[in-house]
């Protein structure tokens, strides 16, 4: 069965510190992996995605993620966190239906708090 696990419900970091958000997935086919961010009262914004190729993916806002097939992981990282990064982060796995993106399976989210 398809599933996504985000082990950390809540993470607190100081501004300027490095960040790693964990994501593990279970998927029967070639996974297409995503990280989304949701600020309070807002919809989901795509940070980055991985379909194939280089396993280190660069995204917006200085985020990157690394796909590790052997560990079924797709962890999100940022070298230096800004106070504006405080938000909820969702990892998702999905598949392609024909030529379009099919349904996404989401993790339960990680809430990031940033201390000044």
């Amino acid at each position: 069965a398809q599933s996504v696990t985000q082990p950390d419900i809540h993470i607190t970091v100081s501004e300027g510190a490095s960040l790693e958000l964990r994501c593990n997935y279970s998927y029967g086919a070639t996974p297409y992996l995503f990280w989304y961010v949701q600020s309070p009262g807002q919809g989901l914004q795509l940070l980055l995605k991985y379909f194939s190729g280089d396993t280190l993916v660069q995204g917006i806002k200085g985020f990157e993620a690394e796909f590790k097939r052997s560990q079924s992981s797709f962890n999100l990282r940022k070298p230096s966190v800004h106070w504006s990064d405080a938000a909820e982060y969702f990892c998702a796995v999905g598949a392609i239906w024909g030529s379009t993106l099919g349904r996404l399976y989401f993790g339960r989210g990680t809430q990031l708090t940033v201390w000044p």
Partner: protein
Amino acid sequence: DVKVTQSSRYLVKRTGEKVFLECVQDMDHENMFWYRQDPGLGLRLIYFSYDVKMKEKGDIPEGYSVSREKKERFSLILESASTNQTSMYLCASFGSNTEAFFGQGTRLTVV
């Protein structure tokens, strides 16, 4: 630049009311989805549609139905609203080239 529009940001309805949540996309996407978001549970799929008049149940369809009469519009219907349907509802539209867009969400409160 709005691509997926949900008709309401906030709704308050009474128990037993029939509730319609509307979602419109302007990108000619085939696949549209309704998710429900609750704290600590992430996003759970209610229903999806891959073509006009086509619909499939997601993981939590009970108490909901959907309608897709036109490609750009996907409606979620709560036949008889209950307090346990108080939640944030997110509509999504997925297209070719792995485009995926989400609406701003509708926060529904059932009293």
